[in-house]
């Protein structure tokens, strides 16, 4: 029931933010009907659970995302400069690392963070091992250092 209430709050917030209507009773009423309908269908589909609505994540994400954005910008500049250099200084390599996250959501965040960072792309996942294609030695070393892994694990929280 907590999840259903959370879903109502999120859907209402999204509806209000996207529409920008706060003083038109008819439209607000229709919005409320839409929210109710979506919650009803979601409940019937039994997708209103921890995985469909990971309520414990946002608190951790707030701390994780700024760090991720900084890492992405640094990696972008590095890869961009390498692309522009005439001698194209890249050394592609494939590495396998263990994802220390307990949940699927955590592993998805980790694998997507790696892919989002230029210079490293997740090319395969099996169980808790992920295979990464790295454009440079430095990019590979960055993943192997495990800092991102630890930070994503912290995002998961105690759950």
């Amino acid at each position, binding site marked *: 029931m907590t999840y259903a209430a959370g879903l109502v709050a999120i859907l209402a917030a999204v509806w209000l933010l*996207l529409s920008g209507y706060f003083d038109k009773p008819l439209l607000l009423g229709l919005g409320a009907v839409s929210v109710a309908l979506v919650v009803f269908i979601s409940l019937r589909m039994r997708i209103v659970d921890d995985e469909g609505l990971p309520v414990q994540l946002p608190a951790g994400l707030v701390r994780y995302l700024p760090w991720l954005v900084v890492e992405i910008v640094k990696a*972008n500049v590095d890869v*961009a400069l390498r692309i522009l250099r005439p001698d194209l200084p890249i050394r*592609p390599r*494939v590495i396998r690392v263990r994802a220390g996250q307990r949940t699927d959501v955590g592993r998805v965040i980790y*694998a997507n963070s790696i892919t989002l960072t*230029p210079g490293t792309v*997740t*090319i395969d996942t099996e169980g808790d091992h992920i295979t990464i*294609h790295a454009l440079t030695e430095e990019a590979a070393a960055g993943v192997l250092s495990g800092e991102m892994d630890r930070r994503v694990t912290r995002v998961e929280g105690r759950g």
Partner: protein
Amino acid sequence: MILEIVSSVLVIAGAIFAVIGGIGIVRLPDFFSRIHGAGITDTLGAGLILTGLMFLSPDWTVTVKLVAILVLLWITSPTATHALANAALETGLRPDVDETEEATSSS
């Protein structure tokens, strides 16, 4: 006025990164390394352009929508990139890597 300058700088920087990503796709040697070039366009190119546009938005609802686009893009683009790379791997395409490097790291 200042907002317009900030916005222009960000949008132009984003455009430059998007072009660099394109150059990367052409210059990099094989499929898997070309993906990294596309990654630049996806993350910093799109990110800077959208952030630049936020400074020009007439009211906050437009800003909210731009943030929503950015969030959606930053979730879907790595997912799509991974789908592409994994599909290539599944169909038997092997990354063009330095053999000795792979031997030391694939343990």
